[in-house]
């Protein structure tokens, strides 16, 4: 009897998959890896000029070959005649994947409590299935820096590629300890402190920053001397900046704060990147002289002062680049990181120029983050983060036709597109209740 039951159960189990299939319509298109030949495109390499009638072979997640007459072999051929191949764009400052709905605190994971929390890892909180990731990558933005916010040292930022099922699969090989440089500016219209109070707060914060820095130095000295130290994760992480294991990403915006930050890092043997830098154009020469690379944005933003020209934020990147600053762009966005190409277009139109604007979302951030051997251009041996478009991806009329991340062919679908497919011609329409 038992055996019969067993047989029945086994049979039933055998039928289960069929039963499930019967209840599901349609097919889900997943990202898939493979060998792809992007045939006969105009390839905008960024670093090695623009190549017409050129093909790109993607294999094992890398750009395997670039050339005029590549044989397809066993590769899947994607005809790109009349189309353009660009490197995937990099947004160098976002909260993508760290938040789902910004007004619902339960879904906001980018800002931890505390003033000194450099051990908070952005990578930990990345949700690979955040709705905004699928929405972002079809725009051609394939890689973003996820940056925690909050206190003076809010955490450690991480570069992620916008494909993968775990944060580690997405990790792009760059991290940086974030510092919100004490600000002498007003935080917005709801900041009702007096000028004196703002100044006092900034001085107090600066003093605190110095103390924390000295603590980190002491921690490292003691550690190097072999002292037995108590568990102190904050200092452990800050000391990674002192040993140059990680760079310090200093978020700083007001002109006087930028000057103070330049002074503050003088004599400190560390690797520094500035981020934000909204008033960089006021002190561009000083930033260039200090040799500090800059991640700036959003470009589509209001001027910081009422008296500024209306296009101060549009023109900021261009003015810094002209002064000799190495510039990368960021949106400082969460759900609308997809607008990076349009921020870049505005920077281009208001002084940066198209070529430099492209560099600011590809090779420049790659170089600033020390990952240019893998990212930022269409070159043999680099990761296959590629986009295929009908034209200039900075133009809204251009359609992105294919996206590859780490050699995975990304389905051009997300909730925004699915809703379009469902509701463009709704059925039932108006009548037929």
């Amino acid at each position, binding site marked *: 009897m038992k055996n019969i039951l067993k047989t029945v159960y086994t049979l039933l189990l055998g039928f289960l998959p069929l039963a499930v299939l019967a209840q599901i319509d349609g097919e889900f298109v997943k990202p898939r890896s493979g060998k792809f030949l992007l045939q006969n495109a105009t390839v905008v390499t960024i670093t090695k000029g623009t190549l017409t009638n050129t093909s790109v072979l993607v294999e094992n997640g890398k750009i395997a070959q670039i050339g005029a007459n590549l044989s397809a072999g066993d590769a899947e051929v994607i005809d790109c005649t009349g189309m353009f191949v660009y490197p995937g764009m990099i947004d160098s400052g976002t909260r993508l994947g760290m938040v*789902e*709905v*910004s*007004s*619902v*605190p339960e879904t906001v994971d980018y800002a931890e409590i505390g003033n000194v929390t450099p051990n908070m890892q952005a990578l930990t909180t990345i949700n690979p299935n955040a*709705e*905004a990731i699928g929405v972002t990558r079809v725009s051609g933005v394939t890689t973003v820096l996820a940056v925690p916010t909050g206190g003076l040292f809010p955490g450690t930022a991480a570069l992620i590629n916008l494909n993968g099922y775990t944060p580690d699969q997405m990790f792009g090989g760059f991290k940086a300890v974030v510092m919100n440089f004490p*600000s*002498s*500016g*007003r*935080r*917005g*219209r*709801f900041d009702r402190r007096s*000028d004196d109070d703002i100044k006092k707060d900034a001085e107090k914060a600066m003093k605190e920053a110095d103390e924390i820095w000295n603590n980190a130095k002491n921690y490292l000295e003691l550690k190097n001397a072999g002292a037995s130290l108590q568990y102190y994760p904050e200092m452990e992480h800050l000391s990674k900046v002192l040993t140059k294991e990680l760079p310090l990403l200093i978020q700083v*915006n*007001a002109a006087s704060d930028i000057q103070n930050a330049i002074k503050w890092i003088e004599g400190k043997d560390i690797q520094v990147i500035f981020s934000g830098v*909204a008033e960089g154009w006021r002190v561009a020469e000083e930033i260039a002289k200090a040799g500090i690379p800059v991640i700036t944005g959003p470009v*589509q*933003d*209001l001027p*910081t*002062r*009422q*008296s*500024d*020209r*209306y*296009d101060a*934020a549009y023109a900021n990147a261009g003015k810094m680049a002209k002064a000799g600053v190495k510039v990368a762009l960021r949106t400082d966005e*969460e*759900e609308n990181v*997809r*607008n990076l*190409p*349009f921020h870049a*277009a*505005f920077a*281009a*139109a*208001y002084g940066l120029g*198209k070529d430099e604007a492209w560099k600011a979302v590809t090779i420049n951030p790659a170089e600033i983050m020390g990952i240019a051997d893998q990212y930022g251009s269409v070159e043999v041996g680099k990761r296959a983060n590629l986009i295929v478009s009908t034209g200039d991806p*900075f*133009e*809204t*009329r*251009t*359609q992105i036709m294919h996206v590859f991340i780490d050699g995975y062919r990304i389905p051009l679908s997300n*909730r*925004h*597109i699915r*809703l*379009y497919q469902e*509701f*463009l011609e*709704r059925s039932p*329409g*108006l009548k037929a209740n």
Partner: protein
Amino acid sequence: MKKLTYILAAFLGLGLNLHAQTPKGSILIKNATVLTVTQGNQENTDVLVQDGVIKQIGKNLSAPSGVTTVDATGKYLMPGIIDAHSHVALDVVNEASSPITSEVRMKDVVNPFEIGIYRALAGGVTVSHAMHGSANVVGGQNATLKHRWGAKDPAEIIMQDAPRTIKFALGENPTRVHGRGNGIQPRTRMGVEAVLRNGFNEAIQYKKAWETYNSAKAQKGNNTPPPAYSERLQTLADILDGKIIIHCHSYRADEIYMLINVARDFGIKKLVFQHTNEGFKVAPEIAEYTMGASVFADWWAYKFEVYYSTAFNAAILHRNGAITSINSDSAELIRHLYHEAAKTQRYGGLTDDEALAMITINPARQLGIDDKVGSIEVGKQADLVIFEGHPLSSYAVPQMTFVDGIKYFDIKKDKDDQRQLVAATEMVEPIFLRADEEAHRCMQDVDAYFEAFQGAFLEEHKH
């Protein structure tokens, strides 16, 4: 005595005339690619403006004596951009003290000195719909503005010939402010419907009371006292009488559908939805029963009721026949609405004319001013923008902006500091570091209602 009254009346009349006397210019714009929006594109074409009105569109026009010529060779000329949802040039935005505050008027809080007006002009925007906020179900009456930068009298930037409009709001904002903040109805979308139906029914009774009084008054020897006057109920009655266009802040399909049903029950036809992120789900209904939707190009996920949004919203609404416009609701976005409209080409493949209509003739229709502005046609008010590059290109740069034929923005003559008014007490100029806090003002001025809540409230909840 009678004479004095006449003289007084004459003076008042004169005063009103002076009041309505806004500056008007004459200009000949030569050799542009004219994007008329309603009547196609015309290459190498001239547009002649006289006394603030478009007089002629054609080739080889010559300037009458005294009329300045602007050479627009190689450039594009389009109608002044119209923003159907803005809070620029308003000193306050929300009168949130009651779920219905239809008596308040944004015309009373217009600030012609706000730098945002100039910045909007620099983005080609000539008309904006200065709206009450979204803190209550029935907010205040809005003001339609013409961006006559430099005016010192608020009345001079108000578009006096625009019809009345009023702000309504559904969903999270009014339920949070009153239900959760004040402990009174509405706390839910059910309560929002009740506030609306109760309000309109009260207005019907109010109307009846006045009608009864007025007919009784006509009878001899009648000394019935008049009913108490209520600006609040009178305004609702004016909505029922079709004298005011409703512009309703809304996001979810269910609440949009609810208001359509309420409007149909009360015979209200002048209804425009604002934001309308889930409008695409009820696009056929919006198209059939309303004056359409004014939407964001791509904003979503900043609050829960916009989580199920799509950037294809404008395209779906338009393809279903709804009048659709793209608005800013932001001091930042208002500066590049041409670019926001262009996103309908990425998300839905709209044509140039369809995309441009979203920021010109369509918002004009929703504001009831499409007979005056919103396209380049002979007889319309000369609100015009000259662009370097096609306005739907991401690289487009506005060059000159005209309102009523007067040039208010010229990129070549732009000074660093364009402020009209600097406070004498201002010692150190404030630096606003995350300017977008400044940009979104739909929920401004409601913090007093949330002292019990955490202070972060306002920064968290935008629009």
